[in-house]
């Protein structure tokens, strides 16, 4: 049985002291043994960014690729190597700015990969420019007068791309993150896990509201499958359906318990998950759902692709046995041939 320490590498970890990435690394390393997969059958693939240094610190196979493109490598690998457990690590810049297109296509294809998106709402590695998840008006190195772009919500985007598994977790919440990792790893198909991660150098405290014990209770909406969505001290707040079909937050005491929305990540219509995503205020992080938004089962691209090939191979027999050489000879000859003696 492996232990967390078996997943540590000799590489000196080079994040800034205090960076939220450390906590995520520790949680992932301690979660890994539960996967029950030998180290050599696990692969971490990342792009570029502080977060993307992750593979260097995992004693598994790993590729630190180029900015935004990790899902593309994972795609080729997952199609050809069903025996591997493939993890993509990306950042809010890597995965949503330069790599946004690969992300949505990997999700819609529902490849057997798990994508961990470390969202610190900033560009860490390039020293503090804003990212697509930075709140409107943010003053950064590249926006001295404040940003002008309305932020992207990775959860909403993923749902818009028809992702089959979408979840959110917090770097510092070891138990919650482990739970989400577990669910993501068990999911068959592409899983997107957004992890709010503190960059204590360039965006310190970005998620304090969700971490500070005095505010967390009122800010976080924990999502628990099959349970009514309540939160706050003693579950004083609840998510109920608004008159127009949307969702809203209400005092639990003031509503009929039957009105409280029961969380069901498995429904095939992504609308409710989408509505949950929109409860959160991107600026204040008020009412931020944490947990699994959506988890449905759907065929996986890579499984289907292998099936097409395997079925064809099974019919033709090639190339392991060599029996396919006749078929290959027939292919090479094609329809119209002639002989010169």
């Amino acid at each position, binding site marked *: 049985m492996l232990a967390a320490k078996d997943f540590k*590498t000799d*590489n000196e970890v080079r994040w800034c002291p205090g960076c939220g990435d450390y906590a995520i690394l520790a949680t992932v390393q301690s979660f890994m043994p539960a996967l029950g997969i030998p*180290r*050599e*059958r696990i*692969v971490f*693939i990342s792009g570029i960014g502080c977060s993307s240094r992750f*593979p*260097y610190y*995992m004693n*598994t*196979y*790993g*590729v*630190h*690729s*180029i900015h935004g*493109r990790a*899902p*593309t*490598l994972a*795609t*080729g*690998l997952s*199609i*050809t*190597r069903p*025996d*591997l457990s493939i993890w993509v690590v990306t950042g809010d810049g890597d995965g949503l700015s330069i790599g946004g*297109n*690969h992300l949505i*296509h990997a999700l819609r294809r529902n490849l057997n990969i798990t994508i961990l998106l470390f969202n610190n709402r900033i560009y860490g590695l390039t020293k503090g420019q804003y990212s697509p998840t930075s709140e409107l008006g943010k003053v950064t190195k590249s926006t001295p007068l404040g940003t002008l772009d309305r932020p992207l919500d990775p959860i909403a985007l993923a749902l818009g791309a028809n992702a089959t598994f979408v979840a959110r977790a917090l770097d510092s919440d070891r138990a919650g993150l482990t739970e989400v990792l577990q669910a993501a790893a068990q999911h068959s198909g592409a899983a997107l896990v957004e992890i709010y991660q503190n960059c204590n150098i360039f965006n310190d405290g970005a998620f304090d509201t969700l971490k500070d014990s005095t505010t967390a209770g009122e800010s976080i909406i924990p999502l628990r499958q099959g349970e009514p969505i309540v939160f706050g001290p003693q579950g004083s707040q609840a998510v109920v359906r608004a008159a127009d079909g949307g969702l809203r937050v209400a005092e639990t005491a003031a509503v009929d318990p039957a009105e409280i929305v029961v969380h069901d990540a498995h429904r095939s219509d992504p609308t409710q998950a989408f509505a949950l995503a929109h409860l959160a205020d991107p600026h204040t992080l008020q009412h931020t759902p944490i947990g699994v938004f959506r988890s449905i089962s759907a065929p996986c691209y890579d499984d289907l*692709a*292998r099936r*097409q*090939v395997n079925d*064809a*191979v099974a*019919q*033709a027999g*090639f*190339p*392991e046995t060599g029996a*396919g*050489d*006749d*078929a*290959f*000879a027939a*292919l*090479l*000859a*094609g*329809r*119209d*041939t*002639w*002989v*010169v*003696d």
Partner: protein
Amino acid sequence: MSEVMVNPSGSVPPPAPAKPVERRDRVIIRFAGDSGDGMQLTGDRFTSASAIFGNDVATLPDFPAEIRAPAGTLPGVSAFQVHFADHDILTPGDAPDVLIAMNPAALRANLKDLPRGAEIILDADEFTPRNLQRVGYSADPRADESLAAYTVRELPLTTLTRAAVADSGVGKKDAARAKNMFALGLVSWLYSRPLDTTRGYLEKKFARAPQILAANLAALNAGYAFGETTEDFSVRYEVAPAADFPAGRYRNISGNLALAYGLVAAGRGCHRPVFLGSYPITPASDVLHLLAGMKQFGVTTFQAEDEIAGIGAALGAAYGGAIGVTTTSGPGMALKSEMIGLAVALELPLVIVDVQRGGPSTGLPTKTEQSDLMQALFGRNGESPVIVIAAQSPSDCFDTAIEAVALATRTRTPVILLSDGYLANGTEPWRIPAVADLPTWDPGFATTEQWQDREFTPYSRDPVSLARPWALPGTPGLTHRIGGLEKADVTGAISYDPANHDTMVRLRQAKVDAVAATIPPLAVDDPDGARVLVLGWGSTYGPIKAAVQAVRAGGQSVARLHLRHLNPLPRDLADVLPRYDRVVLPEMNLGQLATIIRARYLVDVISVTQVRGLPFTSGELTGVLKDVIASVD
């Protein structure tokens, strides 16, 4: 216009021709019509019949970038040129002996390429005032002196076809659409081509549409019979089978198909599955289409969201131990630059196929060019050497594909294979190799056993090839991390050390350079000690060789050398070049290989360039060579 008797039956035309037969050693025919007229199919069928008949053949399809340009317009003209001969030929021919023009647009678009005395067969039904005006003819060219230099056969092809297919039960539109088969039948008669392979083809193609089949067969036979019967044609021609082919079974093959076959053969060769990650782009898309239909050979094709994803997936697959391949053309190649750089840094095998087309930018998507050589060599940041090889003829794409995979897997380095639009779509006879004769090799993955006594070092190297170990995920004991940052020699750990960087940059270069030692000695074609060498690469092979033959036929000497390996260059090239007073290098670009050769060998190469989107004609090259030879005399 003579009255004609049409034979609408499906019966075989009279075996013994009633008209005199003249021998020709070679003929060039160009079929031209609207995009919707089926000229590519017509040409293809004529080619097949000629090849099966035993001629040597070479073809040049030339179609518009539009899917279906409006009928009857100049941009909508689609043409197919076929050259067939009783001897070894190398090009689709410089200028057509015969032009089949299905409408005024086809005539207008192609007339400038016709030599005096050429024959023109045209569909008179289409020469209406409206059609003429549409393509800018203010007067009917048949009526003025425009066509005086040619032998013109005006035939009411549409009317004749309609009459021929009247009994087949098809509607008016389908009836008219069969006129390409009428033309094919007629030209088949004219050049004494058998009809049976085309009949077989049609029967298969229209197996589920018996009326259309009947119409097409009727039109084909009618065309043949028309030739025999009409007084328009007083003589027919014959081109004997070519005698100079090595024995074997042959087929006609295009470059894209040969490339696809070659990739399958390479996967078989090293017992690895082939994974193609690609994004459609003209003229490379067919490789994707073709491989998508070869799943039974363990081939996976993945149509990615863009070119970057295509090559990224191929690289991911290569990391996992598959034969990772990506196919594209110029603009797509530009997009792949950064990922090729990553593959250089990761030192993983990867095959990148660039089927070059006219550039820059979107350029001329359906035309050919050799203008991506510099991009292949240098189109990445940093010192980023890759292996570059080029195919020289359609069938050669097969061997080149196998070699590309072999080099990539042996050196764990990206290999760029350059093809082009001319090779991709052009065809030539190919002696089908015996599968048992195809090369096989061991990809040589790193194993747990090899490393059981020591720490795995992913950037240690084979002493000869300088290749690093290819350790697949899944292999116990070899877990390791690689990436695009500079790596420490041997261990592969991230390293910012100045001296190490210098070492690694030079090691990657040395590894590519080391391939030169594995290139077979150059075979210069120089039978009689010429003073002028003509050097070439890629698809200029045919035109150059034809020009060299023409020069020699004229009693002059010229040497010829065609390069397949463009990076690294063969070692003995340094010895060959100084032997000649002049080195001539024709390229379909502004002199890209010439730049490299000049830089490397300080030889004052004469760079001969044209960038017309079409292959060189052997005639123009013959002229150039003669001029250069004269200059050294």
